[in-house]
C-alpha cells in the first residue's frame, strides 16, 4: 500500500461546497490509488467540465482537463497512444450521459481499457442547478417550472447493452466500499463504467444524502454472481426504492487497445520516428 500523500497537490484544497459528495469520491480515489500504489506519472486522468471535473486540480498526476462531454474520446486517444498508462476519466452526469452519451456507448462497444467514474449528482452543478439526464421525471426546477418531462437516462443498463465489460455503482457516502470498487474497476482490463452517487448539497433538493442513504444497498459479493450478464442487466435496471451498489457485472474480452498494440512492439508514443522510409511508398506510384 502506497502513500496517499503522493497524490496531493501542495498548497491546494478543493473548492467544492461544504458537504458536497465530491469530497468522498476524491478521498476514495486517492485511497484506491494508494492501495494500488499507482505511480502518479504513469497515470493519466481525463476530466470533463463540471464540479466533478474540478477534482483533477487536487490530484498530482498527468491530467487533461478537457471539454464538457468529451473526456471519453480524449481518454481513448491517450490509451491508444500509450497503452502502458492507467487511464481514468472523471466526469459528471451531464457530461457523460447528456453531451457525451454517444461517446460512452461507443467506447463501451470498443472495450477500450479505460475506467470511467461518473460523479452522478443528478444535476448540472457547475452551471448552478439545471436538471441533468439523470434527474427524475416530474421534479421541478428553476429552469423547469413545469417539471422535467423526460424519463431519466439509465446508464448502467445502457452500458451493459453496449458491451461494457465492467459495470458498477458506488456511493460517495460508502467510502470504504467505494475505494474497493474503484480499485476493482481500475484493475479490470477493458472498459469500466462506475456510476457514483454524489449528493449535490447546493442544488439537488431531491437526491440528498438522506435520500441516498435510504435507497442504496450493497450487493452481497458472496452471493451475487457478477459474471452473469442476464442477472446484471436485471440488477442494473433496479431503480425505485432500492438501489444496488457494488460490481454489477464483469467479463473478460479482448480490448480495442490490445488490437492496436499488436501493430507495434512498443507503445505508439515511444515508437522511434526519426528516420522513417517512405521510398517504398513512392515506388508504388512509379
Amino acid at each position: 500500500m502506497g502513500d496517499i500523500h503522493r497524490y496531493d497537490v501542495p498548497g491546494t484544497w478543493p473548492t467544492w461546497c461544504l458537504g458536497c459528495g465530491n469530497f468522498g469520491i476524491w478521498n476514495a480515489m486517492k485511497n484506491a490509488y494508494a492501495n494500488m500504489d499507482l505511480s502518479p506519472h504513469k497515470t493519466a486522468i481525463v476530466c470533463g467540465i463540471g464540479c466533478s471535473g474540478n477534482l483533477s486540480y487536487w490530484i498530482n498526476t498527468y491530467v487533461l482537463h478537457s471539454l464538457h462531454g468529451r473526456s471519453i474520446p480524449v481518454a481513448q486517444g491517450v490509451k491508444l497512444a500509450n497503452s502502458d498508462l492507467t487511464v481514468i476519466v472523471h466526469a459528471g452526469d451531464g457530461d457523460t450521459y447528456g453531451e457525451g452519451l454517444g461517446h460512452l456507448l461507443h467506447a463501451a462497444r470498443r472495450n477500450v481499457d479505460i475506467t470511467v467514474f461518473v460523479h452522478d449528482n443528478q444535476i448540472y452543478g457547475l452551471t448552478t442547478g439545471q436538471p441533468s439526464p439523470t434527474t427524475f421525471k416530474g421534479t421541478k426546477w428553476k429552469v423547469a417550472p413545469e417539471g422535467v418531462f423526460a424519463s431519466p437516462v439509465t446508464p448502467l443498463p445502457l452500458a451493459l447493452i453496449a458491451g461494457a465489460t465492467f459495470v458498477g455503482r458506488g456511493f460517495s457516502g460508502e467510502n470504504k466500499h467505494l475505494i474497493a470498487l474503484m480499485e476493482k474497476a481500475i484493475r479490470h482490463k477493458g472498459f469500466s463504467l462506475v456510476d457514483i452517487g454524489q449528493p449535490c448539497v447546493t442544488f439537488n433538493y431531491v437526491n440528498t444524502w438522506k435520500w441516498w442513504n435510504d435507497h442504496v444497498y450493497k450487493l452481497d459479493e458472496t452471493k451475487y454472481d457478477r459474471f452473469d450478464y442476464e442477472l446484471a442487466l436485471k440488477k442494473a435496471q433496479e431503480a425505485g426504492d432500492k438501489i444496488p451498489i457494488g460490481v454489477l457485472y464483469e467479463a473478460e474480452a479482448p480490448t480495442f487497445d490490445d488490437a492496436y498494440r499488436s501493430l507495434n512492439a512498443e507503445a505508439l508514443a515511444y515508437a522511434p520516428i526519426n528516420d522513417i522510409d517512405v521510398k517504398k511508398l513512392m515506388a508504388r506510384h512509379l
Partner: protein
Amino acid sequence: MNNSRLNWKIGGEAGYGILTVGEIFSKAFVKGGYHVVAHPEYPSLIRGGHNTFQLRIDAQRVRAPILPVDVLVALNAETIVMDLNDVVPGGVLLYDAKSFNVAPQRGDIALCDVPLTKLVTDLHLPKVAANVAAMGASVALIGYELRLLNAAIQDVFGDKGEKIVEQNVIAAKAGHDYVTRSYPEPYKGGLRPLKGPNRMTLTGNDAICMGAFKAGMKFIAIYPMTPTHNVMTYIAAHAREYGVAMVQPEDEIAGINMAIGASFAGARSMVATSGGGFSLMVEGLGLAGATENPLVVVDGQRPGPSTGLATRTAQGDLRFCLHASQGDFFRVVIAPGDPKECFFETFRAFNLADALQTPVLILTDKHLGTSFFTSEPFETDGLNVDRGLLLTEGAVPADYSRYEATSSGVSARTVPGVEGGMFNSNSDEHDERGYFSEDAPVVAKLVDKRCRKFFTAATLLDGIKYHGNDSSGTVLVGWGSTKGAILDAMDYLRANDDVELGFLQVLFMSPFPSQLVKEHLEGRQVILIENNRGAQLGSLIKEHAQIRPDHTILRYDGRAFNADELYQKIKEVL
C-alpha cells in the same frame, strides 16, 4: 510528325470503375515519359449518375486540366449527350454504336465505332471489361504502345492476382487490335513513348499520407467524408507496415478529441475531414489551442454551405479555418498547391505542430486531393523530424512549469510516463503550472504567451512562393489548388502572347505573410484568382496588406479552373 500532347476523356455510368480506368490510363502515359493531369468528375451518387475521367497528356510539364478534348470515349449514351460538345473540331468520338441509341450530332469530328461489349463478351469476359477494351482501343487510336498499358494494368491489378491481370490484358488487346484493323491511321500522327525520367502518378491526398508517414504520425482518426475518404483508404492500406493506429471514430467530435488525447500522450497525431466534419471539430480545435497540444488537421474542401456538393471542388473554407473556435489563439494554416507541396508541407506541419504546440491546419480540396498528377519522386534525405521542446525522462527541471511564459510563447512539454513532469493540460485558463487561475494579470500573461507563437512562427516561415516574372507590371495571386491552372495559364501566355507574368502563391494563410505580400503586390496590377465566391484570400490581402486586387477571377460552380479557360479570363482583364 508526332503529336506531343493529347486530351482524353472517358465517360460512363457510376459504379463501372471509371476511376480505376482513369488511373490505369494515366499510368500508361507516365510510364512512357509523359506528364499527366487527370481528374474524375462524379455526382454524389453511387450508381446511375454520370461519371467522367479526363486525362491531359503532355510531353511538357502540365498541371491542370484543359478543354476541349481530343478523344472522347463514351461508355454510355449520357456521355454523348453531356460531353460531345467538349470535343475539339477534328477530334474523335470512340464509342460502341450498337450499345446505345443516341446518334452523335457532330459532323466535324471523326467517329470511331468499336463494338466494345461484343469484343469482351465474345472472349467470355465480364461486361465491365468493356472499359479496358476501350483503353486498348484508345491506345491504338492514339498510336501509343500497348505494352505500356499492360504494364499499368499489372501495377494497378497486380494485388488482385495474375488471373485478373491476364483478363484485363486480353480485353485491352481486343480493343487495340480492333482499332488497328479498322482505323489504321493514328490520330494526329500518333503519340510515341518518350525517354523521360521515372515519375510518380499520385493525388494530393496520397502525398499527404506519405508526408504524414514520413513525419512519424502514429495516430489518425478519420470519420469518412468526401474528399478525404481516399486518405482513409491509403492509410489503412499501410497502417500495419508503418505501425500507425487508424481509428474510425463514431463521429468527428470523437475523432479530434481522440487525436488530442493521443498527442497529449506523446504520439504525433492527425485528423482529416471536410468542411462539415471540420465544423464538428471546432470545439476540439480550441481545446488543442488552449492546452497547447500539437495536432495536424486536414480540411479537404468541397462546395458548401452545408452538405453542398459532396464530390465537387471549392476553396470556400479559408476564413472558416482561420477563425474557427472562440477566443484569440494562434494556429498555423497551410495551403499546399500540388502533390509535392502536399508531401513536404505535411511533413513540415508535424514539425510545426511540435515546435509551436498548437494546431496546424492543412487546407486542400477535392481537386487537389483526388486528381492525379505527375511528380518526380520526393527527395526525403534532408527531412529531419523535430519534436520541439519535448522533455524526456530525466530532463525535467525540478521547478518545471508546463506553461512557462517564455519569450517565444512556446514552453517545454512533458508527456505522461515521464517522471516529475506531471501537469494539468488545462482547457480552463490557468497559470504557468497549469493550475486554474482567474487572476487578471495571470490571464493576460497566458493569453499573451500563446499569442506570441504568431511571431515565433513568422520567423520560421516565408509563407509565399513567387513564380515567373519578377518585374511584370501585372501579378497573379492565388492559393492552394489553383496553382496548377495559374502556372499553366502563364505558360500559355508566354507561348501564345509572349507575355511573361508573375504569380504570387500564398502558401501560409496563418501566420499571414503580410510584409511579403505587400512587397510583391504594391504598385502592380493585381489579379486575384480563387475557387470560391467570397474572394477570401482577397479579404486577407485587404486586411493584412491594405491592397485591393484590381481584378478578381472567381469560379464557384463546384468545378476547378481549366488552364485554358483561366488563360482566356486573364487575357480579358490584362
